[in-house]
């Protein structure tokens, strides 16, 4: 079983448009959306038979006001400003470390499991599965939810004997991205030829280097800025990163996204995306 992950550092470079297209071009695969903050792959893949599961991660403190003597010790030790003037927990700020509960002299504080989101298994084509999740606004531990989605997808791939997982990654270089890289065989970097696109690409590439994972590059909308596109290509060559393809700006792709359709379902898009997909598979 192999896993291909699409990331970009910067948001809005076209990860989801491309990931969905490659999922459509693959003969058989398991699809994953690791952007648990704002999953967009389901909008294009329009899956059926969605089965949701609760996801709980960590704890949240709760002060019993009947027992609390307002001694102030909890408020003093809490480094997250999660306890207000009236000795109530502000759930959004509580990180669930449990320091307050351990130190409370009258045992007025309980740590309760914290429901923080859901993960879903769904079918986007008969017998082909999409795994995705949503973390509740304000929650942390996105990395743990990504790990949960990944574990479920990998188990399904093993039971169904599916040899390929294609995953749409989150933006940034933080915990969700680090978690989505675990056990990945190939990372496809999707960039755009802008100053910020290139800047963010270099940061996420440095993270990939730390993990020692093989990567290839796609320059999306390259013709909007051929000069920077060339700079990025030269950089990739110097790094030994294969440029799997350069995709021109296309109003057809924009129209597909505006109407929630997978770009590669359009024949003219398919024609220029298919060779890129073959290049990616060759690197796998």
């Amino acid at each position, binding site marked *: 079983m192999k896993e291909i992950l699409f990331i970009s550092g910067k948001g809005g470079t076209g990860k989801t448009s491309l990931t969905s297209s490659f999922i459509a071009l693959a003969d058989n695969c398991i699809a994953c959306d690791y952007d648990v903050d704002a999953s967009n792959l389901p909008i294009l893949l329009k899956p059926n038979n969605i089965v949701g599961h609760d996801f709980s991660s960590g704890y949240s403190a709760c002060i019993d006001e009947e027992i609390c003597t307002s001694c102030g010790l909890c408020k003093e*030790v809490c480094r997250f400003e999660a306890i207000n003037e009236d000795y109530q927990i502000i759930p959004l700020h509580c990180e669930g470390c449990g320091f307050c509960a351990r130190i409370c002299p009258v045992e007025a504080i309980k740590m309760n499991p914290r429901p923080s989101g859901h993960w879903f298994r769904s079918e986007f084509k008969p017998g082909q599965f999409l795994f995705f999740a949503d973390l509740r606004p304000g929650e942390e531990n996105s990395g743990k939810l990504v790990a949960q989605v990944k574990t479920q997808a990998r188990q399904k791939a093993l039971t169904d004997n599916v040899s390929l997982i294609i995953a749409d990654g989150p*933006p940034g*270089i933080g915990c969700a991205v680090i978690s989505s890289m675990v056990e990945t065989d190939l990372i496809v970097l999707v960039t755009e030829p802008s100053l910020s696109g290139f800047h963010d690409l270099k940061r996420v590439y440095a993270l990939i280097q730390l993990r020692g994972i093989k990567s290839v590059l796609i320059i999306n909308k390259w013709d*909007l800025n051929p000069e920077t596109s060339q700079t990025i290509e030269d950089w990739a060559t110097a790094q030994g990163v294969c440029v799997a393809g350069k995709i021109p700006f296309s109003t057809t792709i924009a129209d597909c996204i505006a109407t929630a359709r997978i770009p590669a379902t359009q024949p003219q898009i398919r024609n220029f995306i298919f060779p890129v997909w073959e290049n990616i598979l060759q690197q796998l």
Partner: protein
Amino acid sequence: MQIAIASGKGGTGKTLLSTCIIKVLADKNAVLMDADVEEPNANLAFLQPISATTTVYRPVPQILPEYCTYCGLCAEICEFNALVVLADKVMVFPELCHSCGACSYLCPYAAIDEIEHPIGVIEETPLQTSGTLLTGRLNIGEAQSPPLIKAVKNEQLSAAIRLVDCPPGTTCPMIEAIRDSDYCLLVTEPTPFGTHDLELSLEAVKMLGMQGGLVINRWQGNDGELLDLSERWGFPILARIPFSAELARAYMQGLDPFAAMPALRGIISDILHRIKEVSA
């Protein structure tokens, strides 16, 4: 006054808007904080030299072997698995540590000190007539951005106008970035992705009880479902920035957006007027 510029989806134009606002304000006492510390981009709109760089640290445990009895209590206390106690050794994983301080405080043998672990830097860039840009830049490999976001926002608290360029998403880094703001501008685009992610960010902003409004970027003559969302959540549409290939190209090349779209200056001024009206 503190204004947060946020969006659920990445790449909708948060940084374009933040940097244009500080340019239009042209106020020496304004500060723009780039709180998208994983991928900070605001400095690319100015390309001005950095005048000072400060390292930001957070405390993580350090075991003092001469006092440690390997009792294992610290590992039991730690909810984040940042400590593993072996027969004759304690392993510390700073990247998992949330810096709560419980292990150090509660160790019965006072065998845990706290040391400073660097997580990133804050770069200060003077913008001449437009005030100051403060860029938070997370060290690569560091998983947790909120402590750095908090540090960036703790700078220049007395500035008359504080703008926060937020990270994408709706979870803890985004909340840390918008927290304590007087107003939240949510930037979106008229696509199914934009609409979907906007609704999630509206939920987050509403949860904090914060006032806010919407800016539709790459507008193509039609609000679509965004109008309905705006009404349902009580977040007015403050401005529509029309789609412009020229603006997109200028932004990509780091060129002046106002030269590419002269009307943009007026749009930004209107946004500021609207915010002042509502918060007055």
